[in-house]
């Protein structure tokens, strides 16, 4: 049965802008980087849900807030129906067993001073799930699972002795050793050699089947997103502008931004002539977000309404939502 494993409502994450001593003295009001600005989505169990968008759109922040690595400014996060927004201490630690995250940079996400066996086995120790020699056994098992075979060859290596792909496998192993239910994958393949990307992706897909994992996948690469996900949400400046199942979304993108984004993606086919949708200007700063529709300064179809009123997500097809005044 597909139930909602993660649900996010009105999620906001603002980072206060660092101010100098003097400015703090003279100004009361703080300015914020509105990294995530009122985002809502839900992920059903076993689903792969992708947050996609350009750098700085807030997708990574959103991912981190969902797994409570960052504190949300406001909004609610539900996990298996339970409100986890305010969980602290031991309860939060227990939650971590069920929610995991893997990171973009395999070179930075492993402690350089920890052997593979310790890195992968550490979650077990933290949650006191193993005794004595059990740890190594379990580590070997899980290494085998992520395709580091034979695992004995790897357990005693340090991260710097591994290649990027191998490290990402180790990171993957570390996050599945606790048998979590939900995983946030933050651009897990963008720093891996092209020829190896699909192995990691395939591994992740296999865990979905094997372990019943649900993914929140974060990527800027829509081609990868299309390949892996069930549902995709396109973010622009901290907000979801379009969201839906991948087929309708890619076939019939509704939001002008989604359209432009898709048209800009290179296609490995020299024989195909494509029409590109040009976008004016660049992404504005997340401190100073345009009024109304935040995309309107760059939008070719903008009307007066766009600069005044913020469009809400409207369902235009089954599970296909768009936030644009053009859509009635």
């Amino acid at each position: 049965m597909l139930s909602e494993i993660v649900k996010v409502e009105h999620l906001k994450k603002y980072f206060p802008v660092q101010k100098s001593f003097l400015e703090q003295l003279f100004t009361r009001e703080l300015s914020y980087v509105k990294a995530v600005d009122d985002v809502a989505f839900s992920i059903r169990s076993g689903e792969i849900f992708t947050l996609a968008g350009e750098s700085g759109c807030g997708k990574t922040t959103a991912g981190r807030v969902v797994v409570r690595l960052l504190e949300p400014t406001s909004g609610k996060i539900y996990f298996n129906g339970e409100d986890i927004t305010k969980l602290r201490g031991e309860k939060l630690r227990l939650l971590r067993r069920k929610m995991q995250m893997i990171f973009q940079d395999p070179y930075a996400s492993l402690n350089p001073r920890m052997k593979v066996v310790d890195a992968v086995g550490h979650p077990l120790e933290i949650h006191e799930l193993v005794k004595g020699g059990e740890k190594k056994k379990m580590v070997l098992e899980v290494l085998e699972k992520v395709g580091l075979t034979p695992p004995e060859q790897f357990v005693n290596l340090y991260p710097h002795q591994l290649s990027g792909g191998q490290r990402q496998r180790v990171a993957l192993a570390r996050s599945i050793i606790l048998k979590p239910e939900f995983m946030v994958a933050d651009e897990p393949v963008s720093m891996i050699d092209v020829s190896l990307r699909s192995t990691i992706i395939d591994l992740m897909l296999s865990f979905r089947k094997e372990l019943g994992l649900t993914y929140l996948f974060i990527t800027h690469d829509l081609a990868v997103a299309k390949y892996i996900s069930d549902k995709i949400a396109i973010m622009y400046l901290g907000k979801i502008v379009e969201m839906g199942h991948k087929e309708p979304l890619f076939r019939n993108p509704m939001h002008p931004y989604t359209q432009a984004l898709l048209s800009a993606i290179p296609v490995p086919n020299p024989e195909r002539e494509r029409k590109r949708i040009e976008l004016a200007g660049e992404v504005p700063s997340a401190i100073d977000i345009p009024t109304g529709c935040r995309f309107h300064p760059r939008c070719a179809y903008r009307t007066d309404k766009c600069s005044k009123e913020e469009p809400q997500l409207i369902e235009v097809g089954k599970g296909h939502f768009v936030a644009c005044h053009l859509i009635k």
Partner: protein
Amino acid sequence: MVILGTIIVSALVIMTAIAPWIAPHDPAKTRVGPIREPPSPQFPMGTTHLGQDMLSRILYGGSIMLQVSALSVLVCFLIGVPLGLFSSYVGGVFDRACSLVIDAVYAFPGLVIAIAISAMLGRGVVNMALSIAVVYIPSYFRVVRSQVLSIKELTYVEAARGIGAKWYTILFRYVFPNVIPSIVVVTTINFADAVLTAAGLTFIGLGVEIHIPDWGRDLTSGWAYLSSGAWWIITFPGVMIILLALGFTLIGEGLSELLNPKLQR
């Protein structure tokens, strides 16, 4: 470089350690030979203005420098490192207060504080070490703090939080081991600085008692006889101090080069 430095330092340490067995004379004993005798077969490094055997003094004399520097480095280490770790990891008001105090100390010319404190505490190895330690605690604190602050932001620390590690587990298993290389570099450089500061304190007149052979003291007292041509009283201890400081500097510089990813081409 590290190897050369280690060779120099360990040679000097060994030399000092086995001095009682290889030194031809009692280093403090006066009038074992003529006064201010230039190097000769009998006294290969000459004699001092009190007729002490320079060679024996050189062999013995490193122990004060080594003791002072080792002790001060130890004190610095024991205070600076934990303070830096906690201050930066805990953050907040505590961190701000610590940083402010430490930065204020750091702004002082080190030798001035060392001299002032040493003058108050009086002579002796421990007092010298303490006054030197005060000067160098800030460097540990600052290095540890800046390292922790940058490591704290690294993904693997976030990953550790993600797997539910407690704060102290993160601090000791994820953050601290990665600070160690920088601490090692600071420590070795600190050794060299401590040696030079100790020599400086002795030069000012704040060293150890006269009956204890010490390079710094010989170098200082030899100054008065240099114009009389007694170059050996100042040259040998001077060279020894330079060698010792150089040894530590080489280790430190070599290590920092090895550990500085920016310089690895």
